[in-house]
């Protein structure tokens, strides 16, 4: 995948400013940067949820930004997306939510009547099983905890049989324990399925722990793009701005640290388990 001079303007504001990078072999890319740096917008442009203003994204030689209609939707299926707020259908049961990952390619009429074949259901159950939540298959999605819902979302992404996975702040709303499970699952997609995973993260240590490569963004531009080992305090200052407190613990979510305390529910869960 070759991203070239990708930009997005909202009115006079430039959210993403001529971003270029390329991903050759499957790898896990962590995108870090302060909020408002354009990380989400970039991922959303790759998935075509947001239209790009300029630039191109070439995958196997064709510019996916110019795809329309059916081909665009096919591309969206190929690059599965995971959201901070899970974006599941809360009133539907888990297995149906996972099945919805395959709506593309399913006939519209069949999907209107909720007709899914046995093999599809088995595939969905396998995906759920892989994430350890096959037992909740018939529960309504809204009754699950945040971490479980995010794993349902990952199962849905797997159901898409994607060629790459985009994750937009997948653990920002989760307690540390769930966050770890979710990140491990994403890492597994990279190692086991040999897929590229691009993951927006707001914590440096998570990015360091799980990613092969880190892209740092600041005000819509890429200011860093290298292996995690090269992420020196100077670079971090460039990414997060000079006046930003550079104590890494501020941006950390390792278990037992401050962000756990910030979420009372999360700490409750931890104590109970």
């Amino acid at each position, binding site marked *: 995948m070759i991203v070239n001079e990708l930009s997005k303007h909202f009115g006079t504001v430039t959210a993403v400013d001529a971003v270029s990078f390329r991903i050759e072999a499957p790898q896990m890319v962590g995108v870090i940067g302060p909020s408002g740096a354009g990380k989400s917008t970039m991922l959303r442009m790759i*998935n075509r*949820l947001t239209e790009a203003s300029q630039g191109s994204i070439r995958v196997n030689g064709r510019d996916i930004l110019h795809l329309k209609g059916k081909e*665009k*939707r*096919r*591309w*969206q*299926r*190929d690059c*599965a*997306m995971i*959201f901070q*707020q*899970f*974006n*599941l*259908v*809360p*009133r*539907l049961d888990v297995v149906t939510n996972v099945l*919805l*990952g*395959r*709506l*593309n390619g*399913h006939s*519209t009429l069949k*999907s*209107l009547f909720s007709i899914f074949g046995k093999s599809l259901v088995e595939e969905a159950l396998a995906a759920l099983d892989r994430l350890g939540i096959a037992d909740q298959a018939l529960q309504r999605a809204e009754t699950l905890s945040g971490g479980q819902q995010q794993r349902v*979302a990952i199962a*849905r992404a797997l159901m*898409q049989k994607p060629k790459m996975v985009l994750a937009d702040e997948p653990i920002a709303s989760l307690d540390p324990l769930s966050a770890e499970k979710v990140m491990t699952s994403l890492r597994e997609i990279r190692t086991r399925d040999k897929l590229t995973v691009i993951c927006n993260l707001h914590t440096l240590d998570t990015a360091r722990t799980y990613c092969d490569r880190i892209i740092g963004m600041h005000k819509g531009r890429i200011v860093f793009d290298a292996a995690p080992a090269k992420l020196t305090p100077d670079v971090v200052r460039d990414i997060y701005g000079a006046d930003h407190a550079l104590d890494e613990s501020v941006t950390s979510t390792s278990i037992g640290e401050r962000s756990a305390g910030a979420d009372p529910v999360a700490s409750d869960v931890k104590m109970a388990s």
Partner: protein
Amino acid sequence: MTADTIQLEIIAMEKRRKLYSTIGILLMIAVLASGYGLASSMNSGSFLNGLEKFFDYPGEIVREAWEAGSGFFALVLQFLPALIETLNIAGAATLVGGAAAVVLAFLGSSNLGVKPPVIISVVRRIMDSMRAFPELIIALFLIFILGSSPVPAMIAVAFHTAGALGKLFSEVNENADAAPIEGLESCGANWLQRMRYGVLPQVLPNFLSYFMLRFEINVRASAILGFVGAGGIGTELRRTIGWGRGAGDETAALFFLLILSIFAIDQLSSFMRQRLVSGKAGS
């Protein structure tokens, strides 16, 4: 200085408000009194005369029904098909109109990614004008073209229902959470699939609740439209009432059927709506 003026201002404002509300109430009473005066003078029968006669007619009907004895229930049974026809007019009209309303509502909601956006405002205008057309006018017009039959009433009621429910449905749609829709879009689901799974499960309980309420309203409307020639219980009523004296027992039987069914539907619909709103419905 400022505190004093503020206090004075507040007192003045209080006084003004009191004055306004007194004027408002007096105005309302005046309007009502003069309105009734005007209405009474326009009426062919006078108010006081009418009051005296108010119980005559119901009394007469009840007496005749009483005299009919067990024959009354035979009459009730005899009119059952007419009631069913009225219920069918309402039922079919609510279903057809409701289905049209769902389509209109999805096309007329601003948050569902309908393209091009012109469709949204056009569909909204369509819904507004469908709502504005009184059922009576459509029914009369269609009776003229199609002849006396339940179908004109059904079309008329369905037409109005599509507009009225469409507006309510689109308001529900516009309050729907965007996250599930976005989630499905990111999977490559097409527009219909996004509506079916991203929106419908969220809005269905509210849709059903409005649907029930509308069915109740439509039963009443169908009965009334029967009176202008659209069939069902209304047509029977016009016949028995048109006969003047002598058909009081039949009229009573019809009233009895109508009141009973409206009462039953009213209770059923409020029971079901309560259940739906309290969130027990699946999808």
